[in-house]
């Protein structure tokens, strides 16, 4: 299902009022677009061949919500360049050990987010201090929709074209959530190198 056909925009615009601000539903996707673009752009800047690098979104108490991570995989034949992998996840356990972690409250990331907002839709946050909470709400709204729409024996999928595909399936009674970045974002992260 396309993002625009879901109730996510309406739900987000309702829930954001708890932060004392509002936004019309038709602009909600601006926030989603810019977050996933910025996460990719940021990791493209800070990635390292030596260590996996992740951008983590967590609430103010540190409860994990989402991560984007990029890693470099050397080729066994050292004469051939290795590959970059780029993933999104809702699961904290997907972040391995020895990963260089940046939080979404990182000043450098927030600058990249502001640039993405401007480049994509020419907007800026009216209250920059709310951005960390807004990012958490973006992920919570997305995951909540998946959670509510999960059906036994069927995979439910949302696509925000150009940015991500997220899905939920029920396996052995347990809801399995996943999210994968669009090919455009993968190319953004990899720069001049190759992705898996």
């Amino acid at each position, binding site marked *: 299902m396309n993002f625009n056909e879901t109730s996510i925009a309406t739900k987000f615009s309702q829930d*954001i009022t708890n932060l004392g601000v509002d*936004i019309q539903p038709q602009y909600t996707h601006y926030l989603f677009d810019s977050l996933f673009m910025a996460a990719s752009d940021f990791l493209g800047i800070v990635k390292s061949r030596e260590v996996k690098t992740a951008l983590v979104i967590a609430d103010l108490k540190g409860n994990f919500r989402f991560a984007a991570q990029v890693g470099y995989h050397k080729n066994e034949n050292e004469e051939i360049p290795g590959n970059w992998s780029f993933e999104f996840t809702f699961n904290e356990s997907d972040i391995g050990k020895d990963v260089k972690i940046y939080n979404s409250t990182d000043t450098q990331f927030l600058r990249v987010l502001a640039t993405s907002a401007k480049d994509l839709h*020419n907007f*800026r946050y009216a209250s920059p201090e709310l951005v960390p909470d807004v990012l958490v709400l973006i992920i919570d709204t997305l995951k909540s929709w998946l959670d509510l729409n999960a059906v036994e024996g069927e995979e439910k999928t949302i696509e925000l074209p150009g940015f991500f595909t997220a899905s939920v399936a029920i396996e052995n009674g347990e809801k399995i959530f996943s999210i994968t970045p669009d090919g455009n974002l993968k190319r953004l992260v990899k720069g001049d190198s190759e992705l898996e």
Partner: protein
Amino acid sequence: MEKSKIGDKIYDVITPEEYNQNKESLNLTFTAIKDEGTQMVYPIRGKNDDRPGIYMNGLINIIKEPEDGDPEYSIDNIINFDDAKSLKEVIEKQSELKNMERIILTNPDNIFIPRIGENDSPEMIGLKKAVIAKHIDLDKYSARFGNNYSNDKRLFNDDTITMSKLKTMFQALDIKATLIIEDKDYSVPNPIGEQIFVELAGGTLNE
């Protein structure tokens, strides 16, 4: 204080930070936000507008860029009173601002002609006749009225007006008004014996 003429309005130009600190007290109709990054000035626009500027949508502000980098929107078009180094410079900048306002006021888009009704009080008839004679677009004077412009404009639908509002109108519209107090005729008991002239309004609000 920074000012900039964009279209048919003169705007107070402020930074995004100044907007966030003072948004409750600003007259948004005449406020523009400057962006040091793009070197542009964006007037704050209402929801039903579609001109270039900045559209406040609660959580986010969306910018609509002017076509072809219209120089009116450039940060170079700002008159900055804060960087005036002498009284002479301040006067020059004020003069520049006055000229900008004159251009706006003397280029009417929609001439305002209030209807004079048979029940209009004499002071209301005087005001309406003066406005008709000026042949003006009242909306272009809206900055002179401040936040209360819409209410003040509606007063032209009434058949009477208070002295206080009459003075506000005269001042906003560059009308000099003088009240002459004198004896009704020569035969009244206890005559004043002279004419008393009282200037009710004599210039613009900015003076």
